[in-house]
């Protein structure tokens, strides 16, 4: 009966077979430094540039607008700090972002605040979405950059990116989006959606960890994050991780080739899991029911704690994650769940399940078989659950 189900694809994904096969020659045969003029160097340079074209194509960008990085965190740091420092020269020292961005964005903003930049952190509403009117109202003469994530990594909610792009264009403000969770799952076109900078990371779509890209629209000037050699047209130093980059381009192309079919299949699995799991007493879905990534399920179960939920699932072979404090390694539960208005103790009882191409309907069956029993078991041990069902503890329905 015990199975192994990997249901934490928002955290990372396995490298797919085709990606691994595409990468291997660049470790063993075409391992040359792309900057070297001899045979094995040239043999690495060409695929590097082909990979760039592929990535550009998938995003609706030009190849010379794609810069390879070490991943999403680097892309976010570079975009925010680069644009902020450049725009500060013109007296623009205001940044707009949202309260539930990834820490790579939030902590970059905090670092910029220490340098004297002013940051507006937009509220996220209980549906897990920012409001475009609030964003527009926050834009000032001295706004250097707006950074709003395409889809949230914890609750999967999809932000109104094209509308935000249009607003930023109207006001002449640079718009960056952390699209790490969205790339490969949603149709993205940086020109049509008026996106000026976009971060992506390979390990979220079956490419290896340690490789990503930052799209920077032509014409946007900004200092380098990493200085050194002349790689990436002098804008991002470091000998290129050709194997990783080739892997990333193959993975991205594959993901983008069947976005719609995969979305259809995963949405069906997601919805079945949510609908059935919501039958568990006092359970709630976090974030908009519909405007969320096809494979993302994020729920709270009153009266229990996330780490013990995950440990129990792990004992049954299921890998998932949670927003509880114990799992975040801090004393507060996930800032994302707090930003949508959940009280601490409800946020502690959260569960995130994220499916990929490799998950099946049988996985959903198994999870649905195991989950209610685990919740019931933990509740039978919980003094908080006792208080909840005896009516001593009440939560306002407005928060859900």
């Amino acid at each position: 009966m015990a199975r192994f189900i990997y249901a934490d694809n928002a955290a990372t994904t396995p490298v797919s077979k085709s990606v691994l096969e595409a990468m291997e020659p660049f470790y063993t045969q075409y391992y040359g430094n792309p900057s070297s003029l001899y045979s094995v160097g040239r043999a690495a340079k060409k695929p590097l540039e082909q990979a760039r074209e592929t990535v550009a194509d998938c995003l609706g960008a030009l190849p010379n607008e794609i810069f390879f990085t070490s991943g999403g965190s680097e892309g976010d740091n570079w975009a925010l700090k680069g644009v902020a420092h450049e725009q500060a020269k013109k007296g623009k020292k205001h940044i707009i972002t949202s309260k539930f961005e990834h820490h790579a964005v939030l902590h970059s903003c905090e670092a910029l605040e220490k340098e004297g930049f002013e940051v507006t952190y937009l509220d996220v509403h209980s549906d897990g979405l920012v409001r475009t009117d609030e964003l527009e109202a926050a834009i000032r003469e001295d706004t250097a950059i707006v950074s709003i994530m395409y889809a949230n990594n914890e609750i999967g909610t999809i932000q109104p990116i094209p509308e935000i792009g249009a607003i930023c264009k109207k006001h002449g403000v640079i718009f960056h989006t952390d699209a790490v969770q969205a790339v490969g799952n949603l149709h993205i076109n940086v020109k049509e959606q008026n996106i000026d900078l976009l971060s992506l990371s390979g390990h979220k779509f079956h490419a290896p960890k340690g490789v990503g890209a930052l799209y920077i629209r032509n014409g946007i000037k900004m200092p380098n994050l990493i200085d050194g050699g002349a790689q990436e047209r002098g804008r991002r130093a470091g000998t290129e991780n050709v194997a990783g980059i080739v892997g990333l381009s193959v993975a991205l192309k594959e993901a983008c080739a069947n976005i719609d079919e995969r979305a259809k299949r995963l949405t069906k699995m997601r919805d079945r899991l949510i609908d059935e799991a919501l039958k568990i007493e006092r359970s709630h879905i976090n974030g908009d029911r519909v405007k969320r990534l096809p494979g993302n399920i994020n729920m709270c179960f009153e009266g229990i704690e996330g780490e013990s939920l995950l440990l129990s699932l792990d004992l049954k072979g299921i890998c998932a994650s949670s927003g509880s404090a114990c799992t975040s390694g801090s004393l507060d539960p996930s800032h994302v769940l707090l930003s949508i208005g959940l009280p601490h103790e409800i946020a502690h009882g959260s569960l995130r399940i994220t499916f990929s191409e490799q998950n099946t309907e049988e996985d959903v069956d198994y999870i649905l078989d195991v989950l209610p029993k685990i919740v019931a078991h933990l509740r039978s041990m919980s003094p908080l659950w006792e208080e909840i069902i005896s009516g001593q503890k009440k939560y306002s329905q407005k928060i859900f």
Partner: protein
Amino acid sequence: MAYSEKVMDHFANPRNVGEIPDASGVGEVGNPKCGDIMRMYIKVDGDVITDVKFKTFGCGAAIATSSMATELIKGKKIEDALKLTNKAVMEALDGLPPVKVHCSVLAEQAIKAAVSDYYKKKGIDPAPLVGNIPECESCACDLH
């Protein structure tokens, strides 16, 4: 999170889960905002803890430390139960990750809280016998 086998055993098969309806003393520590609540019920006969049950809302370490704590005091004299330290609970579990040490502190406090309640019910001032039960220092919530 590197939990020892003993911790995982007490998590997967917790001992003494439940309630004692006519308990001699009940102690509850922690708070939901922090993500940790432990409640201990003790039945005392003479000066021996003849039965003990617990309920815990919390992580793997919280459940394991409460379970182990109940095992360590069951059948013991009250004065011995009061001597139980969080270190003893941790050692019995073959150690805890540093970030989980405070769970063992909570378990020690839950026992003291239950014994305090027992003394109060008997009209005895618990303070000189049990001592102070300090707030858990690792909790940064503004509830305190």
